């Protein structure tokens, strides 16, 4: 990282460190009960001492989120490709898909637990997958339909087939739209897996752990669990951004680098 790039991060780091400091000071100054909000130090300490419980649980939940993310996103892209290819199907499905996007899908979590075994990771993958499916599908479709008419006319002047136009114009045009959706989906996948686990699941899952710790007043470990969930969510998001930087390095937001 160049010195200039690290300087760009400086304000964010200052704000973050200040926020932690204010958090710590506020607890001491107002004598806040630890079950309401533990100190950052207590959370970090629990994060370390409980690592043999927390990390395997986090990894278990992360795999659910990742599975849902991959399956849901791939299905979303595949559906958009079919809809984009056959207008008739699109006319029938798209309004429904957009309406479905407004439905709080997380409300279906208990139903998925009944459909799939609540103790198996598949029920959480299903929730994460459904959450990822719609934004990826709608954005991919929008991307495929955003191809420039002039670029298509140029391809037609070369007597290119529809498949050739799809491959060389529609797909590259859609990629930035797809990555925007994948970034949203990566966050949704983690939310889906954890909230799914709040309704029940295997004992070595992070959501179950956070939920039960909160119920038995083990707040430090509950907060440490939230920290693990946040770090894993960030990691998935960062992986998508890193891929995006490589695949669509020509997208407007990366044009300076």
């Amino acid at each position: 990282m160049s010195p200039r790039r690290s300087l760009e991060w400086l304000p964010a780091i200052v704000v973050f460190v200040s926020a932690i400091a204010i958090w710590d000071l506020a607890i001491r100054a107002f004598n806040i009960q630890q079950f309401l909000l533990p100190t950052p130090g207590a959370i970090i300490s629990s994060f370390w001492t409980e690592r043999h419980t927390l990390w395997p649980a986090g990894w278990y939940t992360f795999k659910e989120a990742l599975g849902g993310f991959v399956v849901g996103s791939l299905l979303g892209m595949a559906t958009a490709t079919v809809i984009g290819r056959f207008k008739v199907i699109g006319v029938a499905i798209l309004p429904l898909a957009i309406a479905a996007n407004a439905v709080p899908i997380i409300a279906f979590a208990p139903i998925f637990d009944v459909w799939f075994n609540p103790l198996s990771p598949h029920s959480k993958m299903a929730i994460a997958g459904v959450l990822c499916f719609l934004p990826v599908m709608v954005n991919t479709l929008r991307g495929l339909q955003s191809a420039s008419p002039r670029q298509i006319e140029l391809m037609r002047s070369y007597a290119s087939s529809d498949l050739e136009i799809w491959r060389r114009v529609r797909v590259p045009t859609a990629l930035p739209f797809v990555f925007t959706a994948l970034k949203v989906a990566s966050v949704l996948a983690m939310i889906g897996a954890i909230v799914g686990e709040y309704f029940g699941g295997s004992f070595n899952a992070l959501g179950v752990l956070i939920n039960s710790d909160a119920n038995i007043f083990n707040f430090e470990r509950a907060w440490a669990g939230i920290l693990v969930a946040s770090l894993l969510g960030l990691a998935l998001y960062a992986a998508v951004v890193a891929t995006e930087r490589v695949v669509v390095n020509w997208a407007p937001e990366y044009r300076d680098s």
Partner: protein
Amino acid sequence: MSTHEPVVRVEGVSKIFPRGNVVALQDIDLTLAPQEFVSLIGPSGCGKSTLLRVIGDLIDPTAGTVTINGKPARQARSDHDYGIVFQDAVLFEWRTVSKNIALPLELLGWDRARRKARVEEMLELVELQQFGDHHPWQLSGGMQQRVAIARAFAFEPALLLMDEPFGALDEMTRERLNLELLAIWQHLASTVVFVTHSISEAVFLSTRVVVMSPRPGRIAGLVEIDLPSPRTAETREEPRFFELVTQVRELLRLRGEHLLPEEEQLLREAAE
């Protein structure tokens, strides 16, 4: 190909857009000999861009036929007989400059080594050697248009169709690119159909100017441009240049009745 066989033969072409029943072109006849540089000029809605697209088989004519190199226009398009340049450069932003120029070569199935050699050659021709690895947005408008020209000429088509290629550029860039285009045209010995709004540009570049008039789009007159070749910056200062500009202008004034703004709008929409 014998020198007598025309590169483009347009016979009795009419185009009626069903929406608003607009007659964009009426009974157009036009023949281009090899290595001619013909400009189509006229007010908005005279059908000059439509005629260009009919020649390129991008729009089907309502009546009449277009023959390119002795073949029907459709066949000519499949055979990659022409290159095209639009008002916007229409570059693919995900491709580098070199890869944009290589696009038609890839579609023609040229191997990597042959593509690379040709791209180098074209970059040199449009004086963009150092910019092969740049992306389009890193170039100025004039440079982007040079890339588009390099791409259109890359596979050495017999015919080049240009739809107001310099219309969006400033006057100085436009005049420089006019000279560059003439140099490339002479170097590659191709035939050019050039749509423009600018009378001086049409006269400066062309061997022949086709003046078109609107409603219905038809040919109002032809002006042979007998300026000496090669043309230079000084050509624009010669008395003969002004005479020819005046001649074209008078044809436009004589035949190009003015449209009401809403009629122009209707025609433009129909053309899209």
